């Protein structure tokens, strides 16, 4: 079910077929709207915009981005981080990469808080000071679905001349994130993603919640085993990293986990 939704949303989001012929990106009305996921608006196939890109755009122009903040607040207060689990194509890619059978590592617990450093440091402060969207300049999703295809499909050769140390840096980050996602569950989402950082604030407040029945729970740890974010749900049910994918509900052997809408 989750996989089907993820694939459908990947197609809905990235299906601007004319890009194959023109080599350019869609610049119509829909690009004014953002979806609550990390999907670069520079991708030739993308219909919608990226909220973190839009946020930085306004911070860079030194406006208070009421529209984006309201958007984050509305989505967050209703479903928390659910869009990360069900809609995000980059999260989907990481889920698939983790399925590769290799030696896996566990992420130290403190790394979850690094994404707030990225959010405040890179997305807000550096962007405000320099006026340029610095997170987008380093974002691995941007290089994977926008940077690389645009440069490879470039016919005029203008873009290729722009390739320099900065572009090399982006590719290094992308390979590092891919390597991390093979060996660690949703490495990018848990450590770096600023969208996740914003939504995670609403996880404890949102209308949709995960509830663990302590009477039934046997502390077996099956929920953490199936959790794509490696959250110990039996210990803390609305953890900042919970993406409401609801896999734990399906796999809990004692049916102790339920979701509730209050």
């Amino acid at each position, binding site marked *: 079910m989750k996989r089907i939704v993820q694939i459908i949303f990947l197609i809905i989001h990235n299906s601007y077929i004319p890009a194959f012929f023109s080599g350019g990106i869609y610049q119509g009305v829909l690009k004014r709207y953002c979806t609550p996921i990390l999907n670069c608006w520079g991708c030739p196939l993308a219909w919608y915009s990226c909220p973190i890109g839009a946020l930085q755009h306004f911070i860079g122009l030194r406006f208070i981005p009421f529209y984006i903040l309201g958007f984050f607040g509305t989505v967050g207060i209703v479903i928390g981080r659910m869009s990360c689990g069900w809609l995000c194509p980059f999260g989907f890619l990481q889920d698939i990469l983790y399925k590769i059978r290799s030696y896996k590592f566990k992420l130290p617990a403190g790394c979850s808080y690094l994404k707030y450093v990225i959010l405040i440091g890179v997305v807000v402060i550096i962007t405000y000071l320099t006026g340029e969207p610095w997170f987008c300049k380093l974002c691995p999703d941007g290089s994977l679905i926008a940077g690389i295809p645009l440069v490879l499909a470039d016919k005029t050769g203008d873009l290729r001349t722009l390739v320099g140390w900065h572009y090399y840096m982006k590719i290094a980050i992308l390979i590092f994130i891919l390597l991390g996602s093979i060996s660690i569950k949703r490495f990018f989402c848990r450590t770096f993603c600023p969208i996740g950082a914003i939504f995670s604030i609403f996880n404890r407040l949102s209308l949709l919640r995960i509830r663990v029945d302590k009477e039934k729970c046997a502390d*077996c740890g*099956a929920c953490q085993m199936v959790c794509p974010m490696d959250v110990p749900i039996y210990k803390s049910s609305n953890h900042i990293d919970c993406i409401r994918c609801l896999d734990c509900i399906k796999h809990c052997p004692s049916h102790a986990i339920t979701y509730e809408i209050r």
Partner: protein
Amino acid sequence: MKSVKSALISIFIVGGGQIYAGRLWTGIAFAVIFYGSILLMRNIWTGLNPAFWSIVGVWFLFWLYNIFDAYKGARLEQPPCERVCPAGIAPWVYINLIATESKEKYPFFPFFNILERICPAPCEDQCTRKIIDSAVAIKYLKSAVKTSEPAVSDKKRNKKVGIIGAGPCGLSAGYYLVNKGYSVTIYEKEEKPGGVLRTFIPEFRLSTQALENEIKKILDCGIELKCRTEVGKDISMDELLQKYDALFIATGAWEPVKMNIPGEEMCLNGLEVLKRIKQGEEFGIGQVGVIGGGNTAIDVARSLIRQGNKVTIYYRRRIEDMPAEHEDREEALEEGIKIIPLCLPRAVKKDRVVMVKTESPEGRLGEVKVIEGSEFEVKLDKLIMACGQKPKPDFLKPYVNIDEAGRIKTKDGRTSNPRIFAGGDAVLGSKTLAHAVGQAKETAESIDLSLRGIHPFIGRLLKKTYLPRVELLPIKDIPRIKIPHRNIEERKHDFLEVELRAKKEDLKKEADRCLVCPLRYRP
């Protein structure tokens, strides 16, 4: 050998080692990402600049991960039974071997068949199947497992290791070290090897025959055993340190814990009683009281009731908080032993004992409060103290750091002295056989690394993981096996083993109950 070969292939071809080891898709994915990114860089190359070195750095990381992965192999999530096992056994693997009737053998493990008899089985407390009905009888399935013969290494290292104490920890450490090619000598002060298992565990829980078999298997690997040699008396520590490249201390915990109450000198000690009963002494006391809730207390009570005494156990917490094995407690109750919880002795007099009531609201590890003014007297012919034991390594004081409780301070088996290692009860205080064997394995690895001069961190990376081939089986609705016990009236009067071995077919059915949770609940 296969892991080394695949690591070698992976050094030259990224992803090649994975394909060689049978993980086709992993190998392809690794190769696509690594060689794909190289192709991409060739395509968009605009000249060298400092940022290129960051890409080289990431490629190097990827290459390292690829070699590491080829060497270690894919690892599944650890299921609860493996995670909590103090001995480091992977129960789900051997259960799967039984259920699939595989011809493969589980690697030799010291004291494997003894663990079946006297392990408190923390794995069964955590078993995932417990949620559906009840836990898989992990402990009893051991007798249906085919284990391979103890492996003796062909390569000989020119280093000698001395072990003090031929208990379960010392013997298993000896096996692991001989397996790695060292020459090992064990010093034991008693007449025969076996330590706590031989001296204290009563015959009706563990027959001497079973113990002898297991010890013989280990000693036959080529371990030299020197019995009736007490270190500090017959041979000094300095002499040993001169003679051996590394010393392993596994002296155990033999010193009984005292309660410090008036009249305690009139009591007998539980360990003493067990030892004397095992040597064939008859105790005809009459009305006996036993203080304590551990395995020692239950063993003393059950031994004494077999010699025609009337036994009552007094324990300071609730019955369900007793640290003794659950099954042993039930068997003891069946045999007619009374357990009176929530009371403590205050003073021991000639033919009676003054007791006081207690309350323990916080359970197993919580504080015990004495209710003042609730004293009562019990008429007892003898009181036996069985409230725990601790290590007493006096002869070691000048050589290693020891904490207040008499335990040797260690880290992965290494003590404050780089040539002395320690494990088992001497480090942990009084713990189980599984703890001892687990520590032995860990410490043997530490000794091996230190003698080869490898840093422990690198050693951890090189540690091989046992790669099992497990199959996912459908969930079957079978109730938990009932382990046959001897008839109560019959077993009450002799010292033969109480638990009987279950039939192979029944055990096969029991193995089918395992959910194979790491495969079933894979992300």
